[in-house]
């Protein structure tokens, strides 16, 4: 980069004079991950070709967004992740959210559901209904969506290993409501690869897991054209402590792996690619986050068009959901969290997200109360209607800093993806622990900066106060577990067990072969086979994945 005479002149005169009188706060300013931030960005920092690198919204390479007029047409979907205790309790919360202007549902399942254990399994002890709603069988799913019309509402489900089973239940409930499969809208997370590196709700080893995923791609391609078949998630990778660059790199590398798996299974690229969606984190480094979303969008467009040769522009688009960073919330002076969430949500909107979840102020302490969930939703509404940022497309484009950072993140993420591929690809890198180690090192470094006081977290390692009053917390009644187990027994007692057994045997035979598993799974859930029973059948054929193996 050659610097203009004007710049050098400014540096010699104004800048040096000023710094000698008022020294800068730090010797070096950095993003998380150690990337140095310059004092000033100038036109010489960016050598973009406008049409090729930045371009127009709704047009390749989509740096400025996936729709031509972005939020001037329709605002992002305000989608609050919720769900706890029993299906009936969660159903009440969903109806509350819909009444207050939520435009899409997002369901949290409890850990036993996410790992395919029934509520009466020994490993479910203490976990039933805790971080989400407990679903053991179709009966629970019917209660969960009672009086919520599934042909009208769009539903996102955070479910991965047993995504096929929960999707099957959703389809079955819709059918009972009179809505055919092609009417349902929503997303299943269905992203197993990030579970191995960051979130931990895996059941089966990578190979059969990828088969289940491609089975879903294929089945949904034919039956549920409006349903997003996967949400390739960087969110949890970032929560586990990665840098922004690692979040982009590992997420897109996972995306590449899914695309390749689907191609290997004989699926047609432009048919399934348009139903791929993404999910990113919104942390507090506002401008880095905006650059991150823009970089991810451009890099994915290039991967899909150049590398895979997708023809349909929809296949090149990276559409994404965003959630504000749960790990950034402090247990101290919790009202500060509202401010953090505002900055993070603003980053997501300035970065062109398609949907957004804002965390609640009390989530570092427990599940959010109804009041704090409402404030979180209101935060989005203030940004949408009062801040003015939604009135023009990609308002930060052309900022020397943001454009330079967009380029930098794209380049570094691209280099990291190449490194993964040189090391045998994502699955191999997971098995070797390469990705986990990278995340772990970043997390350790970040936490050390906080411990050493080099990174300030307001109210945690600086500006602390003695807090006396504690906010009201939402507690899950411990009796929920017993009630859920009782309900499970009742379902088992009242179903046709011969039919259940027959369905499970058919599923086992299908799993041993190579046909699509969706039809036998749907047949089984309709007979009220439990999630645990279905997963156990597959465990017996596929085996189980364990950490470090």
């Amino acid at each position, binding site marked *: 980069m050659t610097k203009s005479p004007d710049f050098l002149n400014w540096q010699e005169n104004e800048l040096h004079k000023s710094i000698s009188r008022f020294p800068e706060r730090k010797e070096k300013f950095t993003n998380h991950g150690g990337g140095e931030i310059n004092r000033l960005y100038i036109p010489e920092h960016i050598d973009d070709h406008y049409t090729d690198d930045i371009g127009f919204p709704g047009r390749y390479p989509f740096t400025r967004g996936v729709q031509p007029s972005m939020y001037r047409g329709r605002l992002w979907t305000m989608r609050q992740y919720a769900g706890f205790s029993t299906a009936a309790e969660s159903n009440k919360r969903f109806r509350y959210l819909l009444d207050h202007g939520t435009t899409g549902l997002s369901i949290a399942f409890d*850990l*036993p559901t*996410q*790992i395919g*254990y029934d509520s009466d399994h*020994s*490993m*479910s*002890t*203490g*976990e039933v209904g*805790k*971080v989400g709603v407990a679903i053991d069988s179709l009966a629970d799913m019917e209660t969960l969506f009672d009086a919520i019309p599934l042909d009208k509402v769009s539903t996102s489900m955070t479910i991965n290993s047993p995504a096929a089973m929960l999707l099957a239940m959703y389809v079955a409930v819709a059918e009972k409501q009179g809505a055919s499969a092609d009417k349902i809208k929503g997303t299943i997370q269905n992203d197993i690869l990030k*579970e191995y590196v*960051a*979130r*931990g*709700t895996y059941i089966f080893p990578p190979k059969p897991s990828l088969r289940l995923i491609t089975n879903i791609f294929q089945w949904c391609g034919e039956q549920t054209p409006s349903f997003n078949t996967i949400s390739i998630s960087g969110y949890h990778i970032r*929560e*586990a*402590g990665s840098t922004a660059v690692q979040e982009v790199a590992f997420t897109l590398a996972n995306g590449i792996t899914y695309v390749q798996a689907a191609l290997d299974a004989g699926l047609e690229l432009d048919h399934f690619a348009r139903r791929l969606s993404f999910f990113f984190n919104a942390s507090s480094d506002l401008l880095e986050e905006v650059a991150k979303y823009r970089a991810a969008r451009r890099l994915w467009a290039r991967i899909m068009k150049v590398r895979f040769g997708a023809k349909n522009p929809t296949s090149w688009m990276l559409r994404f959901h965003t959630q504000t960073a749960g*790990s950034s919330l*402090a*247990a*101290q002076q919790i009202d500060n969290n509202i401010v953090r969430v505002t900055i993070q949500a603003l980053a997501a909107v300035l970065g062109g997200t398609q949907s957004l979840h804002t965390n609640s102020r009390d989530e*570092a*302490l*427990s*599940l959010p109360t109804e009041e704090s969930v409402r404030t979180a939703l209101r935060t989005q509404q203030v940004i949408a209607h009062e801040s003015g940022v939604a009135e023009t497309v990609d308002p930060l484009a052309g900022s020397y800093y943001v454009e330079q950072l967009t380029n930098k993140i794209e380049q570094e993420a691209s280099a990291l993806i190449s490194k993964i591929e040189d090391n045998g690809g994502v699955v191999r890198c997971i098995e070797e622990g390469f990705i986990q180690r990278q995340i*772990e090192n970043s*997390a*350790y470094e970040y*936490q050390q900066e906080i*411990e050493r006081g080099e990174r300030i*977290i307001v109210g*945690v*390692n600086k500006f602390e106060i003695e807090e006396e009053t*504690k906010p009201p*917390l939402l*507690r*899950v009644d*411990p009796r929920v577990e017993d009630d859920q187990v009782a309900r499970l027994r009742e379902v088992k007692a009242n179903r046709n067990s011969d039919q259940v057994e027959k369905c499970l045997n058919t599923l086992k035979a299908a799993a041993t072969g190579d046909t699509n598993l969706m039809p036998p799974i749907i047949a089984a859930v309709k007979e009220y086979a439990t999630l645990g029973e279905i997963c156990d059948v597959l465990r017996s054929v596929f085996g189980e994945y*364990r*950490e*470090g193996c």
Partner: protein
Amino acid sequence: MSNTTYRVLIGKPGLDGHDRGAKFIARALRDNGFEVIYTGIRRSPEEIAAAAVQEDVAAVGLSSLSGAHIRLFPAVVECLRKAGAGDIPVIGGGVIPDEDITLLKEKGVEAIFTPGTPVDQIIAAFTAACSKHHETRNA
């Protein structure tokens, strides 16, 4: 010549897969001279206690962010007792409300740490617990 290297076990009971905190503590303990056995995620209280006994650690650290601490932490204490290792102190960490802390301590958990606690304080608690354990077992 007797050696005073402290051995501790860091475990994640239950189904919670958020291991950022547990891994951070494991590394921080390592960097402060501890020998740390890490069990990995998704372990039952029985497995954690059995490993702690075989490895003869001076303290066990548990982490859970899913809200299952109220059942799982006391279960580990109980399993240790059953294995004749009730003398091994158990320290817990996670998103844990105040009233639960009292309850957990009543059930034999030595100390509880919540998010935002400086790591030095946590290491000091492990050092104190290990030192006390070494003293009593060598008495």
